[in-house]
Every structure is written in C-alpha cells, then in structure tokens.
C-alpha cells in the first residue's frame, strides 16, 4: 500500500507542476537550480488567482521563525481537482520542495507540499490525499 501511494504521488506531483507554468514563464522569476526544502508551519493560505500563496514560518538555526511565501498552482485548477484552501490550516506542519526566486527574497515556487504523514497537498486529485485523507500527526 505504501508503494502504491508513492507511485501515485510521483505521477500526481508531476501533474501538479504543470499548471504553474500557465500564467507566465517560470524562468521570468524563479531559478530552477536554487532548490529549497522548507520545513515549517502554515501561517496563511491565499486562495486567489493567478496563483495560490502559502505563507510558512520556518525555524532558522537559532530557532527563530523566518517567514517564507511560496506560490502554488491556479486556484481554479485546484478547485476542479477537489482541493480547497481548507486543506491546510494555520499551524499545520508542512514541507515545501521549492525553487527560490531569482531576486533572493524568501519567495519560492512550490513544486510539492507534503504533510508529515507523507500525503501531498494540492497535487493531482484531492481524493488522493486531500481533506478526506487521514490528518497529520498532532492534528484533530
């Protein structure tokens, strides 16, 4: 079952990456070589066009919160795939695999958003790991 979930997610991850290129060129803003892996907690989700935005507090080496903002796909596509902004709540622990903005700000393009239980949020269809999926550890 774990293997099946991994295979499904691999396909879904790729499908989720596609809509992000629609609005404008990825290369206009982001550097594909500047990979960031952000482990933090959700502050806010903005569910508006042209991209959803996730605001995350990530602890630095001193344990201080550093705010990041990462863009996801277009809300219309996500809505059609069964997702809503309620898939993430303030305080949720997430890991974002992203590509940093060329201007060096704490801005990224999120390639994937993963919960501690391994489920991917906003990837593929919501039935595969969305709000109906088991909650992450520590959540009610």
């Amino acid at each position, binding site marked *: 079952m774990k293997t099946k979930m991994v295979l499904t997610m691999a396909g879904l991850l790729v499908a989720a990456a*596609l809509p992000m290129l*629609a609005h*404008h060129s*990825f*290369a206009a803003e982001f550097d594909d070589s500047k990979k960031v892996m952000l482990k933090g907690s959700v502050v806010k989700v903005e569910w508006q066009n042209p991209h959803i935005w996730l605001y995350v507090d990530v602890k630095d080496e001193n344990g201080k919160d550093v705010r990041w903002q990462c863009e996801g796909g277009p809300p219309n596509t996500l809505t059609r*795939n069964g997702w809503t902004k309620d898939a993430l709540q303030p305080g949720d622990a997430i890991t974002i695999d992203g590509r940093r903005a060329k201007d060096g*700000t704490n801005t990224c393009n999120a390639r994937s958003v993963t919960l501690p239980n391994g489920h991917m949020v906003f990837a593929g*269809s919501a039935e595969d790991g969305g709000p109906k999926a088991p909650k992450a550890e520590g959540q009610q």
Partner: protein
Amino acid sequence: MSRIATGLALVAMCAAPAFSQGRGGPKPPEGPTPRMPDGKPDFSGVWARPYTPDMSMQIREAKPGGALYRDLPNISKDQKGQVQLPFTPAGKAQWDAYDPANGDYTGACMPFGLTRSVNSPDPLQIMQNAKYVGFLWEQNTWFHIARFANEHPKNLTPSWFGDSIAKWDGDTLVIDTIGFNGRTRLDTIGHPHSAQMHVIERYTRTDLGHIAYEITIDDPVTYTQPWKNVRTFTLRPDWEIMEYSCEENNKDFFEGHIKGTQDPNKPAASK
C-alpha cells in the same frame, strides 16, 4: 540560460499525461459530430487542450512513462533536437535575445494574445451561432470573437488578439487572423512574431468528443516560410469555465519579483 531553466521545468513535468486538469480526465462522450440547424458542424462546448508552451514541438501522444514532447530534454538556445523553425535573420535575433527575466508581459497580466491563449492549459468554451464563433478562455478570462465574413476590414487598429474572420472549408472551420500589435510572443518559451503575422487556424470536430486543431504561423518578417502545429482538443462536459482574474493577487508582479515589458513598438528614449 532562461530557456534552459524553462526547459528543465518542462522536463520535470513531461512524464505525465498532457492535461493539467487532474489525472488526464474522463473519456469524452462518444457520438457523431453535432451540427447546427444549417447542417454545419457545431463546435460549442467546454474543451480541454494540451498545454503548449513551445509551439515548435509536434505534440505527440504521451507514451507510458515517456516524454510528451519530442526531444524535450534538448531545449536549448540553439534548438538542437527540436523542429527547426525557419527564422529570418531578424526573427533569429529576436529569439536569441529573449529573456523573460527582462520582462514578461503575461506575468504583468497584459493580454496573452491569440496563440498563447490557445496554448494555455485552462479550459476553453466555444460558443457558436450563424454569425459568430466565440472563444472564451478561462485563462485570465480572455475572450475573442470570429465573425463569419469573406474579408477583414481595411485600416485595422492593431490589437493583442488580432481581427478574426471565420469561413467554412467543407466541415472544417477556418479562422483567419491578422491585425496583431506585435506585443506578444507565440508561446511561453518566447518564440517571436511580428505585427505582420497572419494566423490560420483549422478546427475540425471529428466526432462528438474531439476537435482536430491545426494552426499555421505565416509571418514573413520572422519566418522564411509558414509552419504548423497540430493538437487534439477533448470535450469535457463535466466542466464549466470559472472566472480567472490575473490581477486580483498578482504578487509576483506587484512585489517586483518579475518585470513587465515596455511596448517594443515605441522608441526606447524620447527625443
């Protein structure tokens, strides 16, 4: 370098089926081509289209586990491995100089123009009557109307989407468009075109669930000869197009992470 980065991003997504909407979508309904009261094919419906960030690539059926676009990993400045576009010297110079980091009009929510709207991954609704064909793209809520007519008006005011007239060639709907303002690019990867571009699109509704689509780019300023791209649109009766305001939260632009573009038709400095 920017095109390599774009190419790498495209490689990352090329293993999956073309459509951005979920897992490839349900099979379209089967049946004969619907027709208008006068017997002509009716193209009305909400359609899924393959996202086409690079019109120089022939769209092929995705092979299981394989790349969607032929030679996608070879996207590079010299187009090695791609269909070789027949650039004029001026066209090649424009192509070589393109760097979206220096300005991206779509990132600034300026009009996408005709070909980039057709290329977009979001749904398209076509509405048709005896006088007009209406193309309603969810992308940025752009629309464009083609009217059934034999010729374009004289003295057109150049525009982002051009002036389109519709004609029948048997059961194929031919959309002929001129009058572009030259401020757009053909596709996301940045292939150039001039204000003299002439676009010929051919829509053939082969059956209830499919449109065979062919677009010809005829632009002697930029390309030495016309060239084509072909795709298949798939009917999605389970979809309705949604509003898509590009401007409502375009943080990329209003926070300065990307730049818009100046009008290339205007001189760089005032005298």
